[in-house]
């Protein structure tokens, strides 16, 4: 996992790029072609987030530099130097993707890994979020790993603008970017400040990212992130259960219960939501409602019959 070192292996990089250009006739950039042939209606033709800061990389440390760029833009005071010890592995002369995500969480930001879609990257930039990307500037068999930040694009010219290594506004052809990005498995991440949502509209993805990040984020960040999720997907049991569980963890039993009640008012299909609300109602002393909900959970999914039995025995033993 070695980053492209600008001032020492310029020649290597140049050579890799030359090879790429040389092969461009027989290499494809399907997403770029599609975007240019048929520009998506909801995407402007050009965008530039000029006020994204610039953290020029030192030695092989493109990982800390790129991460500092996106964290700084999300209103988190940070320097590339302080990130070096957290994400940079000297023996590998580079940073692992998983460490990049973990460090963003340590700064109480929610990292959201985007789908492997160039359009998705452009959409996030258009919505004002710089996108952290991984590239393989070399070839698959001879990799030169590199992290950079996409801050702008121009669909008419077919270019992207990146904060990359020691270059502040590095304009590169979109097709070349797509190929270098594809060789790094299309890895792209936005760093979400508390409560901000990505443009990408995938509730399962958002749920998983947030569930992963929850233990490391500050409490108010978690609450804001779950609330934003419930607001976008009010009929999603994943979001409501996430928020409800989080509130319950803070001993806000009544609030946790009303989140699930609001969900069941718009969608009654979730067995897990009935199950959890049954337990919350029991805790709030509403035994009849608890029994009704537990029965409903079993009707929806027989796997919850233990809940019904447990609640029944708790009620009959007078708790």
């Amino acid at each position: 996992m070695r980053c492209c070192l600008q001032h020492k292996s310029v020649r290597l990089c140049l050579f890799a790029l030359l090879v790429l250009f040389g092969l461009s006739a027989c290499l494809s950039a399907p997403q770029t072609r599609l975007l240019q042939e048929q520009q998506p209606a909801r995407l402007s033709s050009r965008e530039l987030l000029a006020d994204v800061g610039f953290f020029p990389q030192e030695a092989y440390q493109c990982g800390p530099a790129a991460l500092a760029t996106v964290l700084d833009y999300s209103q988190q005071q940070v320097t590339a130097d302080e990130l070096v010890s957290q994400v940079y592995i000297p023996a590998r002369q580079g940073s692992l993707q998983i460490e990049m995500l973990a460090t963003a969480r340590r700064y109480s930001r929610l990292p959201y890994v985007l789908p492997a879609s160039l359009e998705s990257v452009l959409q996030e930039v258009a919505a004002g979020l710089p996108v952290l990307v991984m590239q393989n500037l070399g070839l698959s068999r001879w990799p030169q790993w590199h992290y950079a930040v996409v801050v702008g694009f121009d669909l008419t010219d077919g270019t992207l603008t990146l904060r990359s290594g020691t270059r502040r506004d590095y304009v590169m052809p979109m097709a070349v970017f797509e190929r270098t990005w594809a060789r790094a498995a299309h890895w792209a991440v936005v760093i979400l400040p508390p409560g901000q949502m990505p443009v990408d509209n995938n509730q399962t993805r958002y749920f998983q990212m947030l569930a992963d990040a929850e233990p490391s984020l500050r409490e108010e960040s978690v609450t804001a992130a779950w609330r934003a999720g419930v607001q976008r997907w009010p009929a999603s049991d994943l979001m409501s259960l996430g928020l409800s569980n989080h509130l319950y963890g803070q001993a806000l039993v009544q609030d946790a219960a009303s989140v699930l009640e609001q969900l069941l008012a718009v969608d009654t299909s979730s067995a897990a939501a009935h199950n959890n609300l049954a337990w919350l109602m029991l805790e709030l002393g509403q035994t009849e409602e608890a029994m009704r909900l537990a029965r409903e959970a079993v009707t929806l999914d027989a796997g919850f019959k233990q809940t019904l039995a447990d609640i029944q025995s708790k009620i009959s033993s007078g708790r």
Partner: protein
Amino acid sequence: MQLTLSKMASIGMLAATLLAGVMMQSAALAAPSAMVSTQQLAQETRVDQQRAHVSAFLDRAEVQSLLEARGVDVADAQSRIATLTASELATLAAQIDTLPAGEGALETLIFVLVVFMLLDIAGVTDIFPGL
């Protein structure tokens, strides 16, 4: 069927994975008497995704022809996917993701898949009677 050394080794690993899976499964069965936690939900959504991933793999034409060459019914294989445990799915999905290019790699993975299904049919204590 004559087994090569590397295949023997992978069978050993698979058996270990499977045993771990069975143990995890029995632990999970005792659980759902309380509230469903966010981490449990996250785990479930991941298993669903992996199942879809493995299932899409089985839909590939070259995979189907390899399975058929081994006398495995594709529809049967698809229905087995539904019964794989979480850890088996994770192992398979990871192997599909890191599948290097080339015929040999795909062959090996198909072998792994077939072993999973045989184990699934035979049960852990009665491993490989058909091999």
